[in-house]
């Protein structure tokens, strides 16, 4: 997030800084200060710090989001089993309560830090920063952050990840992207999880799910996967390998990347020149 180069100035708010300027006096004599700063700029600053932390060690950070029960932890278990042994991973788990998911991951021999949010419905960059204090990134290749199961709030908080992966389980309904556009716009990759159940769910049409995703102007790939049966895992693992390779190239060149669309992400599209100067140009495929 950038609050200094003017890239928060858009179509809708340009009039505020043109004409009378950033400081003006209202009719009743009050001082009016034009700000144009993201409401989450504090979170976003911490997220940039987290991302720099990952980048310094060449670690790829993936944020997994979905509704509760879509199979994020099961996907992680299957992924850790399928990734070659020489790749070292760690997992940050977010839940309101319990250490259950972290324990499932640790049983795979993978370090896992559990964040219990109490009543908070999402992870934020400060929570992830705290968790990273308990996790040595040295020698790691990928850190998976399993967000709180929720298709609403997690989409609004940048954690410092490089990519967002959103799961849509086939038991949920193929119109989920139309119902939760903020979440699905934020996805760099959508996984149709529990795909082994498709033959018995005649009301879920993967093509309709993809059409709903495209209507959000998303070009994210959409892969069916079954963590339980292993079907489709190879494409997901290949995607991870490609992303890890891209992250190594970026970190070698002192660059970083943000996930597809975070709130305010459009500033990166409309005024890319401002950000190239900052050495952090978006490198997303085709975006």
């Amino acid at each position, binding site marked *: 997030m950038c609050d200094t180069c003017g890239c928060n100035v858009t179509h809708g708010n340009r009039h505020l800084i043109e004409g009378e300027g950033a400081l003006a006096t209202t009719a009743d004599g*009050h001082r009016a200060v034009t700000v144009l700063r993201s409401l989450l700029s504090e979170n976003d600053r911490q997220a940039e710090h987290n991302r720099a932390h990952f980048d310094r060690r060449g670690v790829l950070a993936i944020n997994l989001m979905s509704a509760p029960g879509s199979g994020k932890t099961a996907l992680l278990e299957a992924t850790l089993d399928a990734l070659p042994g020489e790749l070292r991973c760690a997992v940050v788990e977010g839940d309101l309560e319990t250490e259950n998911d972290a324990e499932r991951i640790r049983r795979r021999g993978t370090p896992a830090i559990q964040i219990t949010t109490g009543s908070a419905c999402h992870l934020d960059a400060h929570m992830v920063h705290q968790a990273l204090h308990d996790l040595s990134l040295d020698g790691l290749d990928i850190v998976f952050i399993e967000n709180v199961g929720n298709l609403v709030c997690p989409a609004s908080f940048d954690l410092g990840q490089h990519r967002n992966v959103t799961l849509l389980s086939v038991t949920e309904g193929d119109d989920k992207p139309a119902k939760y556009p903020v979440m699905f716009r934020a996805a760099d990759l959508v996984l149709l999880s529990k795909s082994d159940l498709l033959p018995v769910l005649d009301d879920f049409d993967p093509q309709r799910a993809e059409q709903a995703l495209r209507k959000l102007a998303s070009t994210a790939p959409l892969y069916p996967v079954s963590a339980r049966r292993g079907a489709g895992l190879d494409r997901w693992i290949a995607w991870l390998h490609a992303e890890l390779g891209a992250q190594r190239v970026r970190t070698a060149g002192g660059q970083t990347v943000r996930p597809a669309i975070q709130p305010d992400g459009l500033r990166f599209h409309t005024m890319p020149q401002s950000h190239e100067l900052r050495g952090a140009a978006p490198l997303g495929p085709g975006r």
Partner: protein
Amino acid sequence: MHELSVCEALLREVQRIAAEHEARAVTTIILHIGPLSGVEPELLLQAFPIASAGTLAAAAQLVLQPLPVRVRCRSCGAETEAAANRLVCGACGDYHTELLSGDEMLLARVELDCEAEAPTHV
């Protein structure tokens, strides 16, 4: 329901600005909230009095200016209005569009009640 934490972040920023300008009180806070911001205006308005109690902004009016969802088509170049869950080009129907506005979650403007400038002593 993350509007309370959004509100708390907003108030930290507003109080910082108020302190910078040595304001006695914050009178108005203007936000730009797009339908794709992930923030629900109604919930933000409900959370604000709770979060602002006891701060310089306790009596401030919170104004939420909604912004339209607009997209620009990468194929035909048209700029059209869109719906939050239908961001395709309104002219040609292509989904290769970029968002021009609609995901804003910005603190746009703060109005402050400041002490009158102290007269300069000769």
